[in-house]
């Protein structure tokens, strides 16, 4: 049975993530209305927001420690928040500032926080193999840390995912593949591109465990994840965990969503995981005032992070040339030994 303390913690991260996306949306659209020009406003580039997907993030990540590894896809903020990524520096990165996680070089799809072992990638399913590698490292070093790869349901048809399932299964690696099913691969509904009903069925062909949570309910995810993360941590192998979530916003900001019916959009808005969470809290005797307090703290944390980020310096243009390598191009040395090698002529076998 989930504790009230845990419920509050899940809720706090969910409302932080939701408010974060709403505030980023506001900031992002500044200067982009009425005419949307991607190069206008304080936030550069594309922006993929995850409002409606919080349950999958918190339900799994609340079983993880800092030494557990998470890889996220192009829609990463909610997972980063649940994993404990430094919110100030993540926000500074999204605003393209020098003190951001990647010194303004990575941006919102490419966030790296090694302190909590979080990374993400803008290429569909390509976070899966590195998660497998983290699981491999844990197994070789005989630690009990686990790796979690997040991906969308559109990514389950990609080779990088399917090959990762096989590798993880054949080596019994401590990896959990969390598929956030928001019904849409940009404009493509799931039934147009795949014949499986839900993503956890992909596990069947690899003789590995598959678990499906059919509603965006953070408590249901948390309970399912207890089993699958536990299985990985105990050395009993990988799992595909699919979670039905919903997409409250476009694929990216500026997406006209003209391919999506109003009914579908309305239905998504009604399937609100946060309202569902509030019902759980009420069942545990947490009243509306207490919830309002949690929300207020979350909002303050987000507002502070955004304010801090916007006050950070922009990167020095010259820094564009730094960080291509860790070592100098010459490698670990800039000298070569001077051996006295015999002249053998190089003949013979």
């Amino acid at each position, binding site marked *: 049975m989930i504790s009230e303390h845990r419920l509050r913690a899940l809720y706090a991260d969910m409302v932080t993530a939701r408010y974060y996306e709403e505030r980023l949306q506001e900031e992002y659209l500044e200067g982009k209305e009425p005419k949307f020009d991607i190069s206008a406003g304080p936030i550069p580039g594309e922006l993929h927001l995850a409002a409606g997907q919080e349950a999958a993030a918190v339900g799994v990540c609340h079983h993880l420690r800092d030494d557990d590894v998470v890889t996220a896809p192009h829609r990463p903020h909610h997972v980063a928040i649940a994993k404990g990524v430094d919110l100030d520096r993540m926000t500074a990165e999204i605003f393209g500032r020098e003190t951001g996680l990647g010194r303004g070089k990575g941006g919102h799809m*490419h966030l790296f926080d090694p302190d909590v072992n979080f990374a993400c990638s803008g290429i569909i399913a390509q976070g899966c193999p590195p998660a497998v590698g983290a699981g491999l490292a844990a197994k070789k070093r005989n630690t009990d840390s686990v790796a979690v790869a997040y991906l969308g349901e559109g990514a389950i048809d990609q080779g990088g995912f399917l090959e990762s399932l096989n590798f993880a299964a054949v080596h019994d690696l401590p990896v959990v593949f969390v598929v956030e099913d928001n019904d849409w691969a940009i404009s*493509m509904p799931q039934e147009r591109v795949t014949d499986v009903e839900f993503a956890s069925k992909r596990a069947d062909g690899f003789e590995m465990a598959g678990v499906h949570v059919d509603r965006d309910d953070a408590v249901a995810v948390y309970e399912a994840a207890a089993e699958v993360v536990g299985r990985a941590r105990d050395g009993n192998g990988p799992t595909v965990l699919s979670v039905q979530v919903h997409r409250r916003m476009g694929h990216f900001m500026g997406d006209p969503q003209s391919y999506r019916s109003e009914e579908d959009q309305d239905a998504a808005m009604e399937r609100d995981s946060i309202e569902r969470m509030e019902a759980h809290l009420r069942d545990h005797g947490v009243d509306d005032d207490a919830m309002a307090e949690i929300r207020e703290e979350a909002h303050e944390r987000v507002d502070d992070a955004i304010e801090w980020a916007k006050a950070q310096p922009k990167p020095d243009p010259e820094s564009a*040339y730094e960080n291509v390598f860790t070592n100098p191009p010459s490698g670990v040395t800039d000298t070569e030994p001077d051996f006295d090698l015999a002249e053998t002529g190089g003949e013979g076998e």
Partner: protein
Amino acid sequence: MTVDRELTMSRAVVEAIGAEMRENEEVFYMGEDVADYGGIFDSTQGLLAEFGYDRIMDVPISETAYLGAAVGAAQQGMRPIAELMFVDFFGVAMDQIYNQMAKNTYMSGGAVSVPMVLTTAVGGTYSDAAQHSQALYGTFAHLPGMKVVVPSTAYDAKGLMHNAIRDDDPVVYMYHKRLMGLGWLPAPPGPKTPVPEEDYTIPFGKADVKREGADATVVTLGLHVHRALDAAASLAEDGIDTEVIDLRTLVPLDRETVIESVHKTGRLVVVDEDYRSFGLTGEVVSSVADEALDALEAVERVAMPDVPIPYARELETEVMPAAADIEAAVRNVQ
């Protein structure tokens, strides 16, 4: 009769594809978000309504499978067009592109043809960072067996697309996002041009002199044709007369037009949005040196430095060749 109907580059691309599909029912289009969405970069806008889901096919996010399926269908004699949403995504499917699509004709001694078009969006300027901003022209042009097309105007885009679809070889057709004329990613002046309504083909390997000049030769392609023209306009105010050559295709490469121009100007500036080393700029300079070393008085290269493309605007602007960089290079060779 003067053609005065102007189209954006995306409308011109779509017009050519639509015409070829009408003409030949073996032409079909596969890609992610090409049906209802009409292509993230408007490459198939409006085609679903006319041709339906069977011929404007949304595909799973499985590039190896659908690009490879295009190779297979092409080898059966069909004429598929397969879209890779961003060129940066080629990494997940490169084997089908460079080991299958590009080599099967050669390895079969000419017994097999692969008449397909691989369309893909390229380029930066809008802070899409390291995995969504690359040009990668040189990567595709380096590997033998693919024709590589990079239009810079609507007029060129239509004629080159007709030629691409009718060609019996694989053609990689790379359109720059900034030139397509998208509402959310406004194009500079230049790519929107008059476009004839009838079908026409533009041959591969024939560069277009976009501006004639006597003092320096600027060789470039794609977005940077327009940046070079801006630089040339500015240089003209100081009496420097710049010739701007739009290569239009990299494979085949029209070395002749470039060399002829260098014979006239003696000064060569090669501009590329792709990485500097091991790429287009080195290839063009070396081609001129091979054939016309005596004519070459000065050379400059303007290209993306050898770093992944950064996200923050200040950083992307630093590395992305601008009109001012081209202008400075032309002044340097004077």
